[in-house]
């Protein structure tokens, strides 16, 4: 399979007079056509900023993409003019957000919010767009799609709104769907349903997904590949089976230990001690060192590179340097 999105050394900073926050500090992500890649990490690790940077929707003034490449389908999006970038957004790359309750415009009908994208990018007539919108709403499980077009978002539940968001995001048949915690705000039964719709639709349209989440249960269910982020950097990347079988980075191990095990005897739920470092107190060495159970001298003085492992895995940890034994 060919590579669809290849993000290289992406850096997004929040620059103010007081300080520079390196929200995204040299991220690499690669997604193949039709593949689902999960981006995981604790709150504040820079997941949303990574996705907004890919879309070039970083809040401005303040946020700024200061370096790197976002190669998409053979061209670097960061080099495109704003006008060309607009043709990519919502059309080739679309996005759904964490907050279904507030992500739809309260004063526009569902129909308007779906058809406007089709008319803008695909130059459809009103009638064509309307028919397509009905189709899309049916695909995300609304049986009375026709009447729904005239409804306003406030009448819908969170799960229904997220389904509308999916229909909207899929309307132009994008090559990549970025889903920023699409199910976090929903209750568990609805979560499964939303994921199901996302999986089916993207499979049907051969859309690749960048799924941002901190729910490792979701990751194991839908992702092919996982990128683990910590404090603005990638600390481990792996295919999903190997990551769950044998997590390498102590941070990943910590994340996996903090999922409650459902089968077997009740395990003690372990959480990683401490918090993500604040931007103005970044450790000099490895960013995870202050919380790492396996920390040793070298970790405190310099930050490791991403070290290649077998099967294309990579890990940012001195434990896996040439000559060290995995612990």
């Amino acid at each position, binding site marked *: 399979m060919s590579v669809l999105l290849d993000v290289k050394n992406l850096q997004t900073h929040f620059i103010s007079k007081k300080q520079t926050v390196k929200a995204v500090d040299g991220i690499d992500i690669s997604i193949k056509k039709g593949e689902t890649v999960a981006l995981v990490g604790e709150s504040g690790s820079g997941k949303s900023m990574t996705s907004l940077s890919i879309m070039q929707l970083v809040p401005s003034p303040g946020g700024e993409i200061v370096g790197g490449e976002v190669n998409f389908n053979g061209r670097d999006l960061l080099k495109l003019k704003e006008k060309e970038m607009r*043709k*990519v957004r*919502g059309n080739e790359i*679309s*996005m759904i*957000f964490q907050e279904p309750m507030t992500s739809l*415009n309260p*004063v526009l009908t569902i129909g308007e919010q779906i058809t406007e994208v089709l008319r803008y990018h695909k130059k459809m007539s009103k009638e064509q767009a309307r028919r397509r919108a009905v189709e899309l709403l049916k695909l995300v499980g609304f049986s009375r799609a026709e009447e729904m077009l005239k409804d306003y978002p*406030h009448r819908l539940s969170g799960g229904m709104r997220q389904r509308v968001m999916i229909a909207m995001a899929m309307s132009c048949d994008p090559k990549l769907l970025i889903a920023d915690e699409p199910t976090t705000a929903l209750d568990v039964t609805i979560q499964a349903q939303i994921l199901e719709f996302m999986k089916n639709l993207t499979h049907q349209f051969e859309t690749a997904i960048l799924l941002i989440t901190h729910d490792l249960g979701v990751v194991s269910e839908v992702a092919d590949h996982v990128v683990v982020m910590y404090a603005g950097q990638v600390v481990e990347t792996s295919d999903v089976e190997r990551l769950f079988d044998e997590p390498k980075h102590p941070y990943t191990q910590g994340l996996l230990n903090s999922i409650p095990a459902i089968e077997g005897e009740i395990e003690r739920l372990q959480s990683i001690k401490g918090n993500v470092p604040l931007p103005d107190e970044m450790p000099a060495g490895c960013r995870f060192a202050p919380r790492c159970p396996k920390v040793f001298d070298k970790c405190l003085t310099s930050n490791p590179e991403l070290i290649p492992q077998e099967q294309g895995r990579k890990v940012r940890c001195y434990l896996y340097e040439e000559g060290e034994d995995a612990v």
Partner: protein
Amino acid sequence: MLSYILRRIIMAVPILIGISILTFSVMHLAPGSPTSMLLAPDIGPEVRIAFEERYGLNDPIPVQYVKWMGAMIQGDMGYSLVRVGMPVSEMIMNRLPNTLILMGASTIIAIVISIPLGIISARRQYTVTDYSVTFGSFVGIATPNFWIGLLLIMWLSVNLGWFPSGGTHTLNEPFSILDRLHHLFLPALVLATADMAGLTRYSRSSMLEVIRQDYMRTARAKGFTENTVIYKHGLRNGLIPIITIFGLMLPSFFAGSVVVERIFAWPGIGDLLITSVFQRDYPVIMGITMISAVLVVLGNLLADIAYAIFDPRIEY
């Protein structure tokens, strides 16, 4: 919708009764009586008693109120004490259209200038543009209407001669819409300045609130231009609270029109009100107060209905 409107109208009744009682009482507490105004000081007491008798000025105040209110409901506001024999309703109706035209024009000016300024200011928050608009608004808020009015008359009509300094039209000339607009512009602009500053501030903060909403990010993620995002997705949301502000501004608008009409010799009910106050022409004063109250209540009702139309989340 219809029942919502009806409910709102019924709710307005006690408000209007309250206002009428208040005006009526205040008017009677004020020093100076119509008798002392209208009759020569050297007039004999029997004439005075006859006068008071004739106009019901000796009745107990509650009785006077009930009589006045009863007639009022039937559209009879009594007769002017000064221009004897002239029905108050006729005096007001002769003047009311001028006031409504003036207010209408100023509302349009205020909207056309303030809302775009507020939007621009919000889009360029913390830039020179934003600071200039903010500074201008505060100057506008702090400067009294009559002073701006006098200044503009001095500058634009006296010095430059671009606009007439008063009246609704050039006397002794056939009706011409251009001539009317020419006369209307300055007073309407001055009246607008009072609320423009506030309206600009409200539009700015309302748009700032809207700009950081999630649905705006959704709209941007759809690939729309920033103008489409702001004007299609943002503006309607931003206008909703401004509609209410409009309703709330109406009373100050009336107050402003009194001053502006006076300065520009604009024959509206505000100008009439001042004349009547000086002459202690009670029926006229009360008539105007009541009409203004009805108009303000009506204006708020319209604002509420507009709100319900604009915001699909309102259930009525």
